[in-house]
């Protein structure tokens, strides 16, 4: 029913309550009756089970692999139940099913974050600008909302139109969350199918969130030349009042910028941000400064520099008020999802609140009106900055050494560190005045603060690290291209063929959070490797930021060296996390614009197209959040594989192919219906890699697709082999699985590859027109 739709337009309606002009009403979903822009596919507004058969097709090849993070279930009062190795809980659940359930729950929480964000932003923008802001992304973007078209089957004309899509997401989410209740779904494959559905919805929600802010706030509209903006601790003038914005929802930051503009305060106040709000601030106003990703949040607060901290939603530390209190900076919360126990002062006079804040009478306030919050923080920042001078400094080196002297070398810090860093050794060295180890630690640290929290001696380890790295702070000044948003149709037209045919070796997207296994530099190193190899490199969110915090051998930032186009050897920053939808959206647009497949309500076919033809892979090296889980799962349903860092193993689930099982890798040849071996391409849908070297070799391999032309395949194999040689040594053991004909062999490697193939008893294979969907077979095989 949820897909049923009606759209009415009427110039004048006579009703019992009067005459209404220009009535436009949408019920359920919108159908554009005035023009059939495309025939409707089989699954507009798909409900939970409508794409189940596609999911089962994927899950048959890419079986869920479960690594339980806990052997127990504690979700109801029958528990805890011990589910070890086949034991069942009081509700009949076993450990595998429980993993599927937890994965679904994580994805749902991720979806809720994006959908809740989209909905909040939608209300904000509709209230500010009305429902009729056109969805106009410029002349080069006709396919304005690929996910909306694909999933919902309509073309949004105005931001108001997205309401039905959001309602659809909201209704579906409730059904899906219900399935996690004790006594509901009891099969792991169905939990996975539901998780895949959530992932799909997640990309839809992200698309909506980003498009409405782009069109309403006039962010760059797919501009490859979006401005280079500043990023890094050192970009902020700490002598001015400093407003720090943290979160993902740009509403309050927009109002701050507007307020500064209206009051000619642009030069008087520094506005900087952490996480995606920072991205989006620079998309609105290129003078805003990005401090950095989530991993820099606690660090920047500990420097004492921020005068006021304004938080919106998502990726904000749970101890934000406590940390802000430490540096005597007031916190202004602005979103119902993050109230922090602060008093609701939304309806009090601003000056009263300012007065309370600058006199440190309250640690912070909750102001649900973004405009008011903006005025409040600017006024507060200006007033409080002079009073906060004393708190803007870190302890002296001598104080630091005194603190370090309390250390008993108990190793609790190290054993609490997610990355097992030798924190104790660094503190021990500091005892003797050697801060270098603390500074080294600061360089690689993900900024979680767990070491400090675990220290039985109460040593403020994190402050010590911050101090030790203080000299770096001023130096940290980099450039990042402001998030450009969607990929242009014109770009798709240019790269569609080379991607599908395999001649652009792949699209590699660095996305997600900074829970890295080691230094943040690894992300940039990986990106650089693939930029040099002329892959299309895309980035978003925290990883887009971390890529900026790295200089090439020539001392240049990657965004300065590589152009911002969606093209071979270019580096695209799409923007904040919700801009991830443009990455998957680009894959959809390839199917639509280049291959002219119908999008409308036609999810399964497009996903099949992408899986078999579009050599794209996501790398979420520090994937941490539930959002990252649902984003990755959404990529997966669409046929795009993802690699996560080793911490990603704690998501508990991978989708793994088995290259050794030949039978798993047959596809239909759409021309004949014949089943053809197409090689393990892509090998996995999602898996955690142990090292960046492994991730790079796998990235190249996961870009291989059954549809590659021989020329394309040869290019892809050249990179795969080359990276394998570089990081692993020798030829890949599975090379023969990817060589279909001799023409697939990279010309420069011909001899050694042929020799290897001989050893393996290789025989030439057919190159299919690949599909996994029997209904797409054009002519049945005899």
């Amino acid at each position, binding site marked *: 029913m949820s897909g049923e739709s009606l759209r009415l337009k009427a110039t004048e309606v006579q009703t019992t309550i009067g005459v209404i002009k220009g009535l436009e009403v949408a019920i359920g979903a919108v159908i554009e009756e005035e023009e059939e822009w495309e025939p409707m596919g089989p699954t507009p507004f798909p409900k939970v089970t409508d794409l189940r058969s596609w999911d089962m097709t994927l899950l048959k090849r890419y079986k869920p692999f479960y690594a*339980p993070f806990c052997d127990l279930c504690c979700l109801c009062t029958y528990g805890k139940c011990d589910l070890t190795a086949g034991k069942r809980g009081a509700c009949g659940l076993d450990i595998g099913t429980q993993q599927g359930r937890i994965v679904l729950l994580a994805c749902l929480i991720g979806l809720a974050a994006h959908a809740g964000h989209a909905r909040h932003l939608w209300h904000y923008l509709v209230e500010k600008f009305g429902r009729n802001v056109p969805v106009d992304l410029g002349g080069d973007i006709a396919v304005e909302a690929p996910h909306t078209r694909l999933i919902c089957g309509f073309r949004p004309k105005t931001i108001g139109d997205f309401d039905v899509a959001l309602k659809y997401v909201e209704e579906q989410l409730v059904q899906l969350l219900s399935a996690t209740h004790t006594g509901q779904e009891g099969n792991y494959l169905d939990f996975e199918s539901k998780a895949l559905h959530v992932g799909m919805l997640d990309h839809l929600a992200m698309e909506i969130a980003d498009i409405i802010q782009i069109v309403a706030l006039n962010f760059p509209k797919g501009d490859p030349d979006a401005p280079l903006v500043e990023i890094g601790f050192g970009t902020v003038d700490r002598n001015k009042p400093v407003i720090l914005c943290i979160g993902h929802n740009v509403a309050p930051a927009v109002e701050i910028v507007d307020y500064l503009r209206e009051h000619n305060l642009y030069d008087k106040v520094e506005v900087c941000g952490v996480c995606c709000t920072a991205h989006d601030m620079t998309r609105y106003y290129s003078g805003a400064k990005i401090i950095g990703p989530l991993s820099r949040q606690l660090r920047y607060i500990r420097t004492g520099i921020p005068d006021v901290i304004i938080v919106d939603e998502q990726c904000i530390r749970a101890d934000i008020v406590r940390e802000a209190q430490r540096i005597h900076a007031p916190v202004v919360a602005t979103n119902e999802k993050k109230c922090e126990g602060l008093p609701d002062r939304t309806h009090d006079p601003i000056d009263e609140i300012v007065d309370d804040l600058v006199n440190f009478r309250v640690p912070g306030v909750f102001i649900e009106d973004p405009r008011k919050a903006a005025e409040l923080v600017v006024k507060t920042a200006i007033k409080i900055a002079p009073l906060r001078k004393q708190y803007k400094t870190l302890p002296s080196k001598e104080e630091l050494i005194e603190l370090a002297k309390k250390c008993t070398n108990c190793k609790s810090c190290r054993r*609490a560190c997610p990355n097992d860093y030798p924190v104790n050794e660094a503190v021990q060295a500091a005892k003797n005045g050697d801060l270098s180890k603390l500074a080294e630690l600061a360089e690689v640290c993900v900024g979680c603060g767990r070491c400090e929290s675990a220290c039985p001696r109460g040593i403020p380890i994190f402050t010590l690290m911050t101090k030790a790295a203080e000299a770096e702070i001023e130096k940290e000044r980099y450039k990042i291209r402001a998030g450009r948003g969607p990929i242009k149709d014109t770009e798709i037209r240019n790269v569609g063929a080379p991607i599908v045919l395999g001649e652009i070796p792949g699209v590699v997207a660095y996305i997600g959070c900074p829970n890295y296994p080691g230094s943040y530099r690894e992300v940039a190193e990986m990106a650089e490797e693939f930029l040099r190899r002329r892959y299309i490199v895309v980035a978003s969110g925290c990883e887009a930021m971390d890529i900026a915090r790295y200089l090439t051998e020539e001392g240049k930032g990657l965004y300065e060296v590589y152009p911002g186009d969606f093209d071979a050897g270019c580096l695209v920053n799409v923007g904040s996390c919700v801009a991830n939808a443009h990455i998957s959206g680009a894959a959809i647009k390839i199917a639509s614009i280049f291959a002219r497949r119908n999008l409308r309500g036609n999810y399964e076919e497009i996903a099949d197209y992408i899986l078999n033809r579009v050599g794209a892979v996501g790398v979420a090296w520090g994937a941490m959040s539930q959002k990252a889980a649902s984003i990755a799962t959404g990529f997966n349903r669409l046929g795009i594989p993802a690699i996560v860092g080793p911490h990603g*193993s*704690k998501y508990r689930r991978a989708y793994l192919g088995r290259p050794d099982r030949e039978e798993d890798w047959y596809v239909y040849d759409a021309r004949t219906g014949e089943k053809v071996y197409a090689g393990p391409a892509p090998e996995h849908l999602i898996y955690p890699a142990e090292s960046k070297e492994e991730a790079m070799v796998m990235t190249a391999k996961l870009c291989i697709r059954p549809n590659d032309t021989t020329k394309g395949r040869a290019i892809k194999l050249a990179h795969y082999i080359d990276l394998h040689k570089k990081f692993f040594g*020798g030829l890949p053991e599975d090379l023969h699985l990817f060589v279909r004909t001799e023409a697939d062999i990279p010309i420069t490697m011909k001899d050694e590859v042929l020799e290897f193939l001989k050893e393996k008893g290789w025989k030439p294979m057919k190159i299919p027109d690949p599909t996994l969907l029997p209904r797409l077979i054009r002519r049945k095989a005899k």
Partner: protein
Amino acid sequence: MSAKPWQISNIPGPKTASILKSGEAVAKILKKAKRPILIVGARIVTEKVDGEPLVKYVVELAKLGIPVVATAHSRKILLEHGVKPVATMPLINITNMLKDPEWKGFDGNGGYTHAIFFGITYYLQSQMLSALKHFAPKLITISLDKEYQPNATWSFPNLSEKDWKEALEKMISSLKGG
């Protein structure tokens, strides 16, 4: 006897690894092992134990005829040390195969009885051992790293570098002695 997980919070549940009290204890288990396999990871590339590179022990175990799977980017250093891994693949791939009761091993002669983990990122290893604990309950898993791995069948307790080295040396000498 049991120990606390090295990463304090890594508490999985009621079933936790038995402690390997010494290198000899490991040797005793391995000697009886019908079809052992050694899985090595990123840490063997750079990590040392009390001055000795980890890879040395891999070389020794390989010499004793235990097939080695190279995960992460460990293949290169193995080749450099003359060890030809029986396979190179992500850690999760080999884990996935080990939990398949149908799988016949790299030589086609049948599944493995003992999976020995060495030089692998602590928490990733823990997750893989968890997968095997639950889904390959008959497989005996052994962690030779210096940190206690609760999800293994057998693990060293948390060892100092010195004790670890001693345990590894003793393991090798006992194996050779046998």
